[in-house]
Structure formats: C-alpha cells, structure tokens
C-alpha cells in the first residue's frame, strides 16, 4: 500500500550537515495501523512529512498504492495536494476563520462538491465523531478534545488511501488522551484506512498499532507487532525504549534443551527467548513485572535470593528494589495484593520463558 525505499533527508545548515532520515525503507500493508515510534529528533515526523509531500527528501522513493509520488533519481515530486493522503496535525491546525462544518467540509469543497451534498456528508462525519451539535460554531470556540475531533473528521472525510497522524494526542491532558485513543482506534477500524501514526509515547503505540517501527537517530531500528517488540525485542534500544528493562551483561555458555544458558555477575541464567542468538548474546533481561517472588525452598532454575532495599507503592502495583546476595540490584514489579517491606529476605525467580537474550552494545 505504502512503500518507502531508501528515504534520506538531510538538513544542511551553515555549520553542519544533519541526517534527519538515514536510509529508511518501510512497507505498510493495506488497512494497517502502522506506528513510527521513537524519541524526539529520531526522524519520525520528518518521515511522515515526506510521505505527505511537505518535505522534499534528498534520496529515495515513495509510492502510495503502487503510484509513485516521489522519486529522487528522476527529480520529481507530486505536490501534497495531489497525493492520495490526509493528515492530522499535532496542533490540530483548525482554521480559525471557518466554522466547524466549513473546516470539516473543506476537502470536499476542494473537490468541487456541491454545497447540499457536501453538507450531508459533513453531518454524517460529524456524527461519527460526536460533534453534530457544534457544526455551525466557530472552530476556535471548541475545547482541545473537540478540536482534535474536528481535525480527525476533516482528515477522514477526504477518504484518502493513507491517513497520516502526527502526534495527534500529545496536546491533550492524560484522561482525555486515553479516551481519544480508544475513539481513534474505533474510528480507524470502522473506516479501515491505512494509517501511519507518529508518536513518542510507547503506551499509545502499543495499544493502537498493528505494527510499530522503532526509530532512533534517523534509522529504523526494528519493525514488529506490539506483542513481539515488547516480549521479544531483537535490539538493545527497543528493549530499553519500550517498557522497562534492566539489561545485564552476560557470557554465553551452552544450549540447554530449548533454552540457552548464560553466565552473569549474579550467576547462571537460563533464557528461552531469542535463543537463536546463541553464542552471540551479550545481554540478558527480564522485565520487572515478569520477575516472580518464590518460596525459598524452591529448587527451580534462575532463582536468586536477596533482601528488599526499598519499595515504591503506586496502588495498582508495587516496585521493589532488591539486592541479591552477590550485590546485584534488581527491580521487581509485583501486585499490591501481597505487600513486602524493606529488610524482608526474599527469593526471586527470573522465568526462563521471559528471559530475553540480546546482542549488541548498550
């Protein structure tokens, strides 16, 4: 549906050359909700703006539904307004000189649709986002969440092949953001448009996306489903950027059944994720919420004993800082059903099924 090949964007200022997008290739399937996730300055917004045609790359090719819209070798670019895309902006970009209905109906007005017909479709779209009663108000009179819905309605009404969303929820407060996240997901499912979503918020990315591309320093680090990126990341950056992960350097020892045994500063650990790395593995990690407290008499593998140093209680769960007998600090996230206090002697188990091997330098 959307294909990007070897995209490259350079910013050249008087003093320096900066590669904002460094040789990115992506392929997004029809109807997919695809997210570009990364810290600020990683090139995700630049990539999105290249797809929209708001930015002219120095290299690469972009095509939408098989139609090329940009090709650096031929030096041709299709102007934004000719591309089969629609876009939701971070600032919503609601035109203050138009009413809600005029804003939403603008893409139809551009197509030359007659007023009466336009109004019918506008009303239907406004109903979809729950703004029917606001249709004739000036767009500037709306609250942040409502403006966000206007921006969404304006993007959806165009019925473009690709919907581009540039951090659309980042200007909303936390409660509203959660609510809008759900609405956005429902809307996308109903309309079925291929969507490219840019965000730096991992929760948003995980809960909305079919697939996520993790970006860093202008490059795509890893592409995968939310499930894969969280449970079996292949890359050190991904492991640390999505969710919490305390990486332990390790020395690979030997294959044991369907797992791989590695040596760490606090003993031998059996890991069952990414065992194909085998002798290449340099790090191992287990997410704090996968680490379990176990009975000290248990003689299962991957069990460590230690003492609780401090706790942070946040209602739903409790974060424990544990010091093992060989002076290794570990953080554990556990349910608040069973509270422990600093000084308690505990035994921890790092489940092999959740122990992930990684290769690379941190």
């Amino acid at each position, binding site marked *: 549906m959307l294909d990007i090949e070897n995209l490259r964007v350079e910013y050249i200022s008087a003093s320096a050359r900066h590669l904002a997008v460094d040789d990115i290739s992506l392929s997004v399937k029809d109807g997919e909700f695809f997210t570009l996730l990364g810290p600020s300055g990683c090139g995700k917004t630049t990539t999105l703006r290249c797809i929209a045609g708001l930015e002219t790359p120095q290299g690469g090719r972009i095509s939408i539904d098989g139609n090329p819209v940009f090709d650096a070798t031929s030096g041709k670019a299709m102007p934004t*307004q000719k591309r089969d895309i*629609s876009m939701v902006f971070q*600032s919503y970009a609601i035109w203050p000189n138009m009413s809600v209905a005029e804003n939403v109906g603008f893409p139809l007005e551009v197509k030359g649709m007659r007023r009466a017909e336009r109004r019918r479709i506008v009303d239907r779209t406004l109903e979809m986002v729950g703004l029917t009663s606001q249709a004739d108000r000036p767009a500037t009179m709306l609250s942040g969440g409502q403006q966000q819905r206007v921006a969404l309605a304006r993007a959806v009404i*165009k019925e473009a092949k690709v919907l581009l969303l540039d951090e659309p929820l980042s200007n909303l407060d936390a409660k509203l953001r959660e609510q809008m996240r759900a609405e956005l997901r429902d809307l996308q499912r109903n309309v079925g448009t291929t969507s490219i979503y840019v965000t730096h918020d991992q929760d948003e990315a995980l809960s909305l996306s079919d697939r996520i591309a993790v970006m860093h320093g202008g490059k795509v680090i890893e592409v995968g489903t939310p499930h894969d990126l969280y449970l079996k990341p292949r890359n050190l950056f991904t492991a640390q950027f999505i969710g919490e992960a305390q990486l332990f350097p390790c020395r690979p020892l030997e294959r044991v059944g369907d797992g791989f045994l590695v040596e760490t500063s606090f003993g031998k650990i059996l890991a069952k994720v990414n065992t194909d790395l085998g002798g290449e593995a340099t790090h191992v990690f287990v997410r704090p919420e996968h680490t379990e407290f176990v009975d000290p008499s248990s003689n299962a593998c991957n069990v460590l004993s230690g003492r609780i140093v401090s706790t942070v209680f946040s209602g739903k769960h409790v974060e424990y800082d544990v010091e093992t007998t060989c002076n290794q600090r570990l953080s554990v996230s556990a349910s608040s059903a069973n509270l422990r206090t600093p000084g308690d002697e505990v035994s921890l188990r790092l489940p092999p099924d959740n122990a992930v091997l990684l290769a690379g330098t941190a």
Partner: protein
Amino acid sequence: MQTATLQGRSFAFEKWLPSLLMLGLLAYLVLVPLVILLVSSVKPTGMPLDPGWTLDHFAETYSDPAFYRMAGTTFIFAIGSAMGALTIGILMAWLVERTDLPARGFVRVMILLPMATPPVLLAIAWVMLASPRTGFFNEILSPLMGEGRHLFDIFSMQGMIFVESLSLAPTTFLILSPAFRNMDPNLEEAARTSGAGIFTMIRRVMLPVLFPSLLAATGLLLMFGLLVFDIPGTLGMPVGIFVLSSQIVYLVNDAPGGLAEYGPISAMAVFFLVILLMITWGYRRATRNASRYVTMTGKSFRIRPYKLRRWKAPAVTFVSLYFFFATIAPIAILIWTSLMPYQAGVSLDMIPKMTMANHMAFFANSRAMSAAQNSVIIGGLAATIVALLSVLVSWLVIRSKAPGRNLIDLLSFLPLAIPGTMIGVALTYVYLTLGSLPIYGTIWIIVIAYVTTYIAFGTRTTHNVMLQLSPELEEASRASGAGWFRTMRRVVVPLTLPAIVAVWIWVVSHCLRELSSALLLQGFDNKTVPVLLWGYWTGGEPNKASAVGLWLILAMIILVSAWQILSARGRLVGVKA
C-alpha cells in the same frame, strides 16, 4: 508490479520559479533606480544613456567645502532630531506603560495624533507660530523682549531639530512602548530585592533589556533624519540651511543654470547612500537578534505601575506641553490662518474678517480637486500593490523554502535606506531617458515611487503576522487537497487580513502626506495634494495652504484611527492553530 509513472513536476523548477519572478520584480523596483543613479554619477551630462564616462562629478563634489558643510548640517540635523525624538519617546513610553500617570489610555491615543499631521504642515504651522517677525509666540512675548527683538527663530537648526523631534516622537513611542509593556516586572523586582537602587536598576537591568528596541529606534530615526525633506525644506531652505534632501530638490527644481544638474546630484547621493546602507545593515542586525532578548514569556503578568508621587505634576506638565506643541498649537494656528483673508497675526481685531473663502476655494478649484483625485488614486493603487506584494514577499521569505529568499528579504527592505528625493531623481532618469514606458509626468510614475518606498514597511508588518501564523494551518489545507492559490485565498489571506488592511491604510496615509518624491516627479497633470499645498506655501498663499492642509489632516486622522484600531485587532486575532 505496477508501472505507473510519477505525475509530478520537477521540484527544481517548482522551487525556482516564484523566487525568480519576485526577484525580477523587486530588482526592477529597487535595483534599477539605484544602478541608474550610480551610472549617472559617472556620466558627463548626468544622464545615464549619454556617451562618455567621467569622474569629474565626484572630484568636483568631494573637493567642494560646501559639500562637507551640507553633509555636516545633515548629520547634525539627523542626530539632533533622533536624540530629541528619543528623549520624548522614551519618557512618554515609560510614563504611559510603567507608571501611574493619570489618563494613560487617553495619552496613548493622543500621542498618535501628530502622525496625522503631515510633517510639511507641522513645519508650516511652526513658521506661523515662531517665525522671527510674525510668529504668534514671538508677538505675544514681544512686550517682554523689547522692540525689534524676538525670542524664537524657527528658521534655524534648533528650530528644524525641534519640529522634527516633535514629528518623530510618535514613531519612537510606537517602537518603544511594546518593549516597555512586555518587560517582565520580575526582572525589575529581582533587581530591587537584590538591593539595587533605582539608578543601578535602570543601568544594569532595564537598559540591557530595552537595548535592542532602543537600537532599532535609533537606527530608524537616524535614517529618517538623513532622508527627510519636508521640515528642513520648509524651515531651512529659505535661510540657506541645506540638508541632503533639500539640496537635491534645490538642484533639481531651482538650479542656478536653470537645468537640473543630475551629475553632481548623483555624486552627492552616492555618499549618503553608502552611509544609509551602513545604518540599514546595522538596523537589520539589531532587529534580527531582537528575539534573543525576547521578554515576552507567554505567561501573563500584571504590571505594578511605578508610583510617580511628587513627580506626577512635572510628568503631567511634560505630556501636556508635548501635546500643546505637537498638536494643539499647530492645528489651532492653521485653523486661524485658514479663516483669514490674508496673512494676519492672531488678534481680536481680525475676528470680524473671518471667512470661509479659502475652504470654499479648495472645493471649487478644479486644480485642487484634481490634486485630491490624484492623491486618492495614487494612494489607493500604491497601497493595494504594496499590501499584496508584502503578503507574497513575506510568504516567500518566512514560509516557503524558496531559494534566494534572503535576497528577496533584503531587496524588499533596502528602500528604507533610499530617500524619497533620491527615488524621485532616479525614477526621473529611468523614465525620462530609457523611454521604455511613457509614464513620466503621469500619476503612474508616482505610484511606482511609492510602491518602492513603502514596500519596506509593508513587508515588516506582514513578516510579523506571518511568523505568528502556524505553518500547519497551510499544510492542513494542502493535505486536504487544496492547491497554492486556494490555500492563499481560503486560509492565508483571511487570517492575515487585519494586517493587510493595516498596511493598506498606513500606505494610503503616507502617500497622502508624502512630498519629496511627488515634488520631484511632478509633471503637468500628476500633482498631489501635498505638492499643491507646497505650491501655495512657497507661492506666498499661506491661507490657502492652511485650508488645504486642514482637510488633509482630517483625512489623515480618519485613516490613522482606522489603522490603530485594525493593528490592535490584528494583534488580538492571535492566529495560532
């Protein structure tokens, strides 16, 4: 595998075309007159297309002590009036924005009224108020001074500086008052709580924060002072005190040989052009870095006004005196003179002789009416062109990534450094000698002169508005499928409309009062109202001049008020997405 071809334009072409068009237009407006001016300075006849080359004009001009006297006079005048206007402007801005001066809102409105008085009229009024023999102030004070002596002589350097300072003070106030208004009082309070006294506070905190605005104001005032004609022309020329602009007008219109001496004029102009360009460069640097000192933080703060206490009476006196000298007295004397059948001092005896004849004559005179018509047409055309051009220039400079946009910015700013007299002379060359367009002596040549002169102001205003306009508003339009033209029509123009209208009115009002270019470019049927007024005045008909002037002031007051209201609205629109 689909093999659709890319339906796009080459982005190299798309990038260059608008820049080239705009650069061509601006070069035609700004560079052509400048180049012609330079060329004519090295031609024996002073006409750019005539044969031969010579440096005689330079040798002659720069070896003549009279030239250096004139240059010295010009600088004294420029620096003196800049200092005068700064003193009045800074005090006014501080009093209005930061102290508990009574009736500050009223003062803020009143201070802009002198802008409605064309400088030439202010000068004429001051001749009536303070000329050595018949000036009103001298007459009422004559019993104190004794027979044949007088207190004020407006026909002097001091007189010129005094009137120019009055006339430039509102501009200074307009530049400085936002700086005073937006200065975070925390800065002052922090200095005070650190134990700094008021003078330390002013020196170490206020001055550095205000420095960029002060620098910008000083640069602008110096430029105005170096290129203004109206006031030195009215007050200095009759007694042989010449500054650059009046010297040029004199050499063009009243040259001793009867023929305009374009060679020496150009040679002289080159010297000032270099200096003006240097000031312009400095001004641009000062204003470009202004954002480094931005004191507006977006968070709102309440200004706790400085309590004047026992200084309140002197402050009120100062403000009242300014209004009296800059507005009330000049307009009063113009009204009086316009009602007199001949030039007469203010006295009870003359009251029975009051007449509306001068005013009636203005409306009955076909020459006067055609001048009014010319002024309106020229103003309307020039203002419309400037407003549209400014939006396009600002869009290219601020919004687009068009190549050459810095050059476009520079070219649109350059005219600020070119005196109206020089534009007048240069356009005379262009259209008299090149003969490409037969517009010499028509209103069109004046329209071109005004577009060139005022594009610099127009673009500064539209730049600011364009900077406030979030680029995503335009991008959203393009992403909705709208092309460039529709985006401009439906999004950019509606959102910048208050600023566009403000520019339009400002340009119209300046076209209505502009004298020097129009004077040099006047032909058979393109006289404007200020030129007519100047003709009456220099032709010894002060009563008619006063009557015409009053109607001009009335038109100006309406325009200036509209401009103020719209500028305020434009700021309020706060066009952010």
